[in-house]
Structure formats: C-alpha cells, structure tokens
C-alpha cells in the first residue's frame, strides 16, 4: 500500500515540476529563470527521497539528495553573484 502511495506521489511531483519549467523557458528576465531553477531543484531533493523509498534503498538515496541540495545551493549563489550589478539584462 505504501509503495503505491510513494509511486503516485512521485508521479504527481514530477508533473508539478512542469509549471516552474514554463517560467524557466518563457521567463521575461534572467532572474525569473534563476528562480524557476531554484524551485525545480528544491522539488528534486524531495523527489530523490521518494525514489529512495520506491526502490527500498533510502540509505543510499538520502546521500544523493543531500549532495543535490548542496549543489543546488552553490549553483544558485554563484549564478546570482554573476549577474550582480549587471545593467540591462
């Protein structure tokens, strides 16, 4: 029962990620795209945890999720520093 529940939650979360993907593709400015990437990344951490419970190996997927959270944070900080004080985007 819980396996089916985690599977359907993962499918629903993957479909929800398409809405920030619209903002990443058609965003008017660079910062809209950066915000969409940040939202997709914070959903991906939760999706990796759910995939770990689907494969019944959560001890391995928790490490992958932790590394992905660190990588997402560093990527967003570095990209927003790159666009710092840059006029007319």
């Amino acid at each position, binding site marked *: 029962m819980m396996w089916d529940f985690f599977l359907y939650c993962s499918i629903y979360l993957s479909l929800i990620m398409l809405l920030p993907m619209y903002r990443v593709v058609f965003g008017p400015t660079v910062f809209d795209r950066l915000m969409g990437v940040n939202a997709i990344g914070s959903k991906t951490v939760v999706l990796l*945890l759910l995939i770990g419970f689907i494969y019944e190996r959560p001890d391995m997927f928790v490490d992958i999720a932790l590394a992905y959270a660190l990588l997402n944070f560093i990527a967003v900080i570095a990209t927003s*520093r790159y666009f710092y004080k840059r006029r007319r985007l």
Partner: protein
Amino acid sequence: MILDIVCIIFVLGGLLFFTGGSVGIIRLPDFYTRMHPAGKLDSMGSLMVIIGLFVYIMETPNLLNALTGLKIVLIAVFMYLSSPTATHCIVDAAMRSGLKPWEK
C-alpha cells in the same frame, strides 16, 4: 498502521504546498511577487514531506534506520538554512541590476 496514516497526511499536505507554490510562480504578474511563493511554499512543502518520510522510516527502529532518519532531518535543517539565503541573494542581484517593481 496509525503511523502510516500520519505519514500519508504529512506527505499529502506537503504536496499541497508544492502545488500552491508552482501555481503562484505561473500566475503572479511580477518577478518580486513571484519570489514570494517560490521562497516560502517550497520550504514548507519540503519540511512537511520530510517529516512524513521520517515518521515512515522510524516505524521499524534499528540502527540503520535511525542513521538514515538523522540524515533526513539534516536535509530539512540544511534546506531551512539555504533556501532563505538563496532567495535573498536572487532578489538582491535583481535590485542591484535595476529591475523595476511592478506598478499597475
């Protein structure tokens, strides 16, 4: 059995918060107003889903599951440190690069 129901309630609540954040990113008119659902609702949804998964994994308590649950809680703690920092950093870069707020 009762812990399964608690897990289901927490995970469904977290997915509801994720839905609200994504719809807000689509439908709000401006970058600064779109930053509001992207910054707050993702944090709350992540916290509720992670609490639900922690309750589920601590149903059979042994050493491996306790260590995995500790790492899951550490993901929540790190996300609560990093998400406001990333939000502030994006908004600061947008303000300094001269992006005007929305006026009707």
